[in-house]
């Protein structure tokens, strides 16, 4: 809420043509237009009758990294999954509110949800490369799955792997199977795979929780590099990680009821002078 700009929506409506023309001219990964970022407006989420998330409004300005922190069960993973419409895959899941990508609601009836997920990529907690595919095929699998054309696949493959920080480790064995990599390498392979379809926004749901410190460091470096060209939202349990990689931090908490966003601010402020007592208790390690 801190950096909410009420005029943003109107501005976005006024500029779709220029955005479209930029997008049409640049097809290399990461050189896509940043857009004006992603905005959540009054998002609620339910699993059946269970109200999991209540009234979250949060802006993700273009080209920034936003960390979502909070104890387990506070709804941060649920929230991130509403941002690219992965929430609705869970039987009984429902949501309310709006999620605006470049000022346009992604839940609007008639929206092609596959196009939304192309623009808003996702990296999951557990590395999940396709085991039947080689490393190269995994990176390019998004093109096949979304039926996109790309004339220069070799170049795209190298670029994505370089940007995910994996190229040097796998360049000599692109035809090996994805499952033959270590956990950290598999996760960077998944990042490379997400990059290949050229998303504007990258959602990362605890991407390092299953990884060793060395791999975590590599992925954090990757996140920093990627943030120059895309908007990143990362869920993390690791407050040091939030402090290291993010520009903004949002603190979530479920205090008996549904999860809520307690506070959001530039990351340095959240960790040095949080406004809410509960945030301070959490970031200083008094609970959670």
């Amino acid at each position: 809420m801190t950096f909410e700009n009420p005029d943003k929506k109107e501005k976005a409506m006024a500029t779709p043509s220029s955005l479209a023309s930029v997008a049409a001219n640049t097809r290399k990964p990461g050189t896509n237009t940043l857009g004006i970022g992603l905005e959540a407006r009054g998002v609620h989420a339910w699993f059946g009758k269970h109200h999991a998330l209540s009234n979250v409004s949060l802006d993700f300005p273009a080209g920034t990294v936003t960390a979502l922190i909070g104890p387990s069960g506070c709804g941060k993973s649920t929230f991130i999954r509403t941002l690219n419409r992965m929430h609705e895959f869970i039987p009984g899941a429902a949501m309310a509110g709006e999620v605006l990508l470049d000022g346009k609601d992604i839940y609007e009836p008639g929206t092609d949800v596959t196009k939304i997920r192309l623009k808003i990529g996702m990296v999951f907690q557990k590395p999940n490369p396709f085991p039947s595919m080689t490393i190269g095929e995994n990176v390019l699998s998004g093109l096949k799955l979304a039926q996109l054309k790309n004339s220069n696949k070799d170049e795209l493959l190298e670029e994505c792997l370089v940007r995910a920080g994996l190229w040097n480790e796998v360049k000599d064995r692109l035809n090996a199977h994805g499952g033959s990599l270590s956990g950290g390498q598999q996760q960077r392979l998944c990042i490379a795979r997400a990059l290949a379809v050229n998303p504007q926004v990258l959602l990362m749901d605890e991407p390092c929780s299953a990884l060793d410190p060395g791999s975590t460091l590599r992925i954090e470096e990757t996140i920093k590099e990627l943030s120059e060209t895309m908007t990143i939202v990362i869920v993390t349990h690791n407050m040091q990680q939030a402090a290291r990689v993010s520009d903004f931090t949002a603190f979530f908490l479920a205090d008996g009821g549904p999860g809520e966003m307690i506070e959001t601010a530039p990351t340095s402020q959240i960790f040095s002078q949080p406004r809410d007592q509960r945030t301070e208790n959490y970031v200083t390690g008094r609970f959670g």
Partner: protein
Amino acid sequence: MTTLESQAGRIPSPREITTEPRFSDKVFRGVVTAGGLSSLVILGLIAIFLGYQGFEILAKEGISFITTSEWVVEVDSFGAITNTTFGLAAMLVGTILCAIIAVVIAVPISVSAAIFLSFYAPNSLKKVLVSVIDLMAAFPSILFGFWGLFVLMPSAEYWAKLINKYLGFIPIFEVEPRIFTRSPFIAGVVLAIMIIPIVTSISREVFSQTPLDRIQAAYALGATRWNVIRTVALPYARGGIVGGSMLGLGRAMGETVAVYTVLNIVYQINWNVLFGAGGNVASLILLKFGEAQPYEIKALMAAGLVLFMLTLLVNFLADQVITRSGTKGR
């Protein structure tokens, strides 16, 4: 290693690690072992019985038992057997032909049904369909036979004529003379209906085990549902689908009553699947058993042994196919 050696003077040989199970564990182990071995024992006893009964015939007829097609028992006016010839070739060809037709028809339908049930059907409809399909598996085969003969035959005859008209240039679709009823094709259609439940439920089972994280990964990359099924679910389920199909093939080869009801059994090898003449080992046994003399019964036992071997062979080959293709998508 060097420090160890200097400390201990030598490298110890690995210790033998044993555990002594508790009494209750031993009992349970005994019970499940008995259960596990019982199928092997039963199968072995059946094979021994068939082999013992059929040995005389197999020794007398030799290889001609499976290479010739005549099945003749001549008796004199006192009922004593004067001459016999037993040959199964037409029945074996017919068995394989009908079973293959059944699998070719059933597998696409079953896989489509399984995909629909796993990925498209709303929950309420899914429950109803699953129990209907399970019910179909428990349906008595004689009823499938009657239904095939009285209801399906007229339609299937029309389809056969269409296939003959447009694909008749392919040798197996030739029909001369033009008799379309009671053909291997129609028996195959009835068998297909009978094996759809088992192939569907096995395919559905493997589809439902497709790892969720892979499905989500594909969706998160902007895949359509069809593309998720094509690139994630089908490769994962392929081994199971092949396995289910082979179980269906086995059932189709052993099916007796339905085929007996529908098929026109003729002691001549017929590769023309639309022509109203065919064979089936199990149906032959049923056809002859009622009026057979003790000597002919021995021949029928030998026929059963051959069918048994054929089924084992098909299952063995199926296993090879599954191990070769099964693990790739996993």
